[in-house]
């Protein structure tokens, strides 16, 4: 899907959510829309894994932005699917309305970075870090952020352990302030 169409798509989703909130009714067909957006964001995530024209450090920040958006969308999808059972109606729509504008902005900045590549605005990675923090904080407040254990459920545990050990060493061994 072209980038502009994705923005239109997200805007359409926001209108759907507004309607659900006003009518007090959760439309289950929205689950398919979340899945479609989720797959577009996954595509963008993959782009940053493969990207070689910018440093790994920069690519990681935009990857991380997409990863977090995916995580939050997966929780949103789960809540929509269970909305009837858990009497989350129209709560899930109201909560999603707080999340969607931030996801839209995160995607917009990530797409901008993908276009700019090596001409990347040097302030963009920092802006993105702040935006992702805002996304996670808002998602946590409205119960749309998976817990650590939910997040690592489908992840390679050996790789996770290895990374933890290496980071542990990193935070012990170096004077990190010298590197900024």
């Amino acid at each position, binding site marked *: 899907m072209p980038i502009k169409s994705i923005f239109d798509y997200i805007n359409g989703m926001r209108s759907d959510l507004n309607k659900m909130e006003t009518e007090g009714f959760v439309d289950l067909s929205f689950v398919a829309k979340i899945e479609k957006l989720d797959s577009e964001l996954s595509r963008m995530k*993959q782009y*940053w*894994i*493969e990207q070689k024209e910018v*440093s*790994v*450090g920069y690519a*990681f*920040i935009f*990857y*991380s932005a997409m*990863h*977090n958006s995916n995580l939050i969308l997966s929780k949103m999808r789960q809540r929509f699917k269970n909305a009837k059972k858990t009497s989350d109606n129209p709560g899930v729509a109201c909560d999603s309305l707080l999340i969607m504008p931030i996801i839209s902005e995160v995607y917009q900045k990530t797409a901008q970075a993908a276009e700019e590549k090596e001409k990347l605005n040097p302030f963009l*990675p*920092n802006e993105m*870090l*702040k935006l*992702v*923090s805002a996304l*996670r*904080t808002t998602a946590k407040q409205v119960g749309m952020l998976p817990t*650590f*254990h939910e*997040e*690592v459920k489908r*992840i*390679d*545990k050996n*790789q*996770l*352990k*290895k*990374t*933890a050990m*290496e*980071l*542990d060493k*990193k*935070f*012990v061994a*170096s004077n*990190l*302030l*010298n*590197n*900024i």
Partner: protein
Amino acid sequence: MPPISSTISKVFLDTCILVSGSVYGSYEDLDIKLEHEFYRKTVPLFEIIKRHVDKRIGIITFTIETQAIAVIANAVASELEQKAEKTLDLGLRAKLFESHTIFFDQCLAHLHENLSFLQREPVSQIEKQQYYLEVSLMYSNLQDTANRLDINRLINANVTPRYRRIIRDEVYGQYKKRYKQLLKLKSEPVEESDKGILCEVIALSKLYRRTNPSTRMYLASTDYHFSPCNSEGEITEQIKQRFDIVCDWPHEVAKYLNSDGFT
């Protein structure tokens, strides 16, 4: 009616404290543990700050907040860079990105939780500049002292020739320990960013003392450019004398706060 004056305590947290206090995570069921070398030393300080959040004890500035995020991001990204650049296998690259982002997100979440207990104070460039000259001069004098520091000469001047050969190694070790802060300054001169941080602490201490002259000002840091390194510290002493700011490690600052009545 004149304002009621009582002693207040303020602790400025250096970037290293925010970073150390945010890098941790223990997931026993997964047998995973990540902990910054100095994390445990920050715990008592953060506990006091959280318990007395209404007193606004813990303070930071925009500089500190921005640096802390950058330090964590750079540490994780550089570790990932080392691994990811070696591999052409996209599957492995994806796993590396994924595992790094999980810990990165956890650390940032802890950082934001810590930030929620701290007061962010604005300090203008003009306010900072007011103290730059004095701070620069202080470090420059200390640097000169450090450069002139000659342990062999000190031993020759203070130990009689008869004992010099016998106890030289022991005395050498003692002097090295005694002048550790200066010796470190000699090998790693102070950076401009450290001077900038000290200027911010001074500007804030002046601001607080304008409304409450008996304000006790602390700078919690693990950086030897401010805090002592297991010995008496000439830099620490100079900062105390010139600006009435007590610099120390976070667990030591927690003890000072205990004495100030914060338990």
